[in-house]
């Protein structure tokens, strides 16, 4: 009967209840978005780093991968050293550079990655195949659109372009054999991947046996930190970063995001709390007579409190699923804005939805709903019966 009483009390003032539910939905949406934001980018980045299973990255000493244009010499020897470690199952060397493609007027520049196609972890084929010959490449959709190229086309390309001479440096003909999605490229970035040796040749003698960084995959049962330390000892000329080390650095850089998310999440909870408290207080003040009569006829104080708290919780719980939908829609929109941040890989999401985020938000809302109803309900249930009836009669 308490449930029935709570329900009928809420439906007595439908408009007011509906507005409260909508208000809670907005609050819940913001809370969910902040919960998603507080962990989304970190989770997304971690997933990205581990997307192809590579747990360790090697870059020139003192740098992070692609932080600078620095490269490492003696790449071949380094690869041999790494592959000699029994706990290392794959080594992917990567050379970064530029590729210029001859167009009718001038040349089109794009980012170029020199990789070993069999072990690469930089792209995923969408159509076609990986390069199997030195004169083949795969390209991103942005590149193909800009170059007006399709699978099977042969492109005149070079590692550099002299605008005065209108000539490509170290020109080669390259065939587009695949269309790929590049994990670490920002949205809109033109990118190609070709065999490592081809790009090294195109960059000239200075690039011989040089790479920008390595990605290393350890065996599933390996202790990653132990592998990382062994590599550091074997190759003192490089910086060795495990996913966990990278994540710690990411955490430091993202800490302000998390602080912002926590503060805004707390604000949204506070707004929800105040909204429900206000509504319950107004509702209780309108029916003080009913409440004390319930006490007079023998309804225990705690049960009166439970009935009123149920009203507050009902509003929160009704608003929560609406808030979930609104929050997901808002997150998608905000993500699309933030994802265009310059230099950020397109694969990074700021708002990443995990089911436990929804449960966390729902749990917080439920607790807040209970707390919001407790004070006004306890206050009402503790009113002196006779005095209140007399005042209500006036």
């Amino acid at each position: 009967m308490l449930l029935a009483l709570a329900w009928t009390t809420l439906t007595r003032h439908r408009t007011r209840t509906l507005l409260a539910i909508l208000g809670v939905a907005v609050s819940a949406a913001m809370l969910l978005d902040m919960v998603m934001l507080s962990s989304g980018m970190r989770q997304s980045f971690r997933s990205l780093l581990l997307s192809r299973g590579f747990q360790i990255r090697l870059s020139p000493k003192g740098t992070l991968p692609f932080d600078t244009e620095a490269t490492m010499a003696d790449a071949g020897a380094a690869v041999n050293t790494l592959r000699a470690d029994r706990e290392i199952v794959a080594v992917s060397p990567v050379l970064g550079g530029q590729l210029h493609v001859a167009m009718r007027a001038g040349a089109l520049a794009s980012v170029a990655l020199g990789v070993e196609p069999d072990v690469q972890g930089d792209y995923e084929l969408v159509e076609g195949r990986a390069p199997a010959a030195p004169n083949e490449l795969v390209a991103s959709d942005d590149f193909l659109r800009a170059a007006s190229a399709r699978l099977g086309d042969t492109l005149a390309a070079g590692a550099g372009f002299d605008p005065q001479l209108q000539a490509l440096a170290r020109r080669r003909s390259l065939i587009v054999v695949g269309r790929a999605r590049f994990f670490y490229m920002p949205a809109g970035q033109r990118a190609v991947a070709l065999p490592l040796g081809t790009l090294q040749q195109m960059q000239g003698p200075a690039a011989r046996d040089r790479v920008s960084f390595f990605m290393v995959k350890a065996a599933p049962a390996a202790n990653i930190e132990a592998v990382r330390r062994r590599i550091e000892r074997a190759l003192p000329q490089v910086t060795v970063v495990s996913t966990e080390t990278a994540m710690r650095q990411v955490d430091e850089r993202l800490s302000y995001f998390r602080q912002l998310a926590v503060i805004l999440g707390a604000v949204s909870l506070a707004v929800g709390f105040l909204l429900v408290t206000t509504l319950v207080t107004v509702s209780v003040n309108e029916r003080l007579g009913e409440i004390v009569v319930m006490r007079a006829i023998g309804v225990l104080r705690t049960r009166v409190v439970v009935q009123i708290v149920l009203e507050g919780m009902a509003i929160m719980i009704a608003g929560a699923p609406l808030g979930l939908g609104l929050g997901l829609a808002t997150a998608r929109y905000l993500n699309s804005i933030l994802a265009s941040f310059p230099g950020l890989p397109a694969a990074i999401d700021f708002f990443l939805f995990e089911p436990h985020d929804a449960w966390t938000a729902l749990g917080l809302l439920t607790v807040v709903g209970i707390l919001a109803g407790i004070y006004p309900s306890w206050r009402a249930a503790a009113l002196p019966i006779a005095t209140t009836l007399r005042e209500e009669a006036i």
Partner: protein
Amino acid sequence: MPAVLSARDLHREYHMGAELVRAVRGVSLDVAEGDYLAIVGPSGCGKSTLLNLLGGIDRPSAGTVTIRDQRLDQMRDADLTRFRLYHLGFVFQRFYLMPALTALENVELPMAEAKVEKRARRERARTLLSYVGLDGRHAHRPAQLSGGEQQRVAIARAVVTDPDLLVADEPTGDLDARSAVEILTLLRELNRAFAKTVVMVTHDPRAERFVDAVVHLDKGVLVNGTGGTP
């Protein structure tokens, strides 16, 4: 007949601003089983305050109230609330039905609180509503009932747990003349047919012909009575 209700040297004082109001001053009273007692007096004499003390919805500043040998003034709040549920029935001037519930649900409310099984409480509620003349109005909400009908529902609610004592505070105060007589008659029938002990506060002059005894209260003091045991 043994006393159902016994009050000894009751006092009730409260502050209104700087002023100390002594609403009830040294009232002693016994009400026997099956009595139908009216407490009358001028407006502001402390009738309702006395009734609230006798019904356990207010605490005396001094003195004792005993119902069936149980001291109300010594009970903790939860125990007193439970005592009211099983031993007391209340009828108020303003009815105080739950507007969100139907007539049937209003009558069921005390039984629901007493954990009576749903089918049984529904059956009893229907029976009582029929007894008070509200057949076919079970599904009506209070707003759809007249004042007299609402008070009938309130009376049905007050007796649904078969209490030892029915306490009525100006039950005809908000009713027209015809409805007032109907309510007084109904209370009389409950008293006669079911030996319900009724204590009623009223300043309705018609009430005196329905009751067994009348006690007069003036400025918080019992002045005299006709019948009853002051």
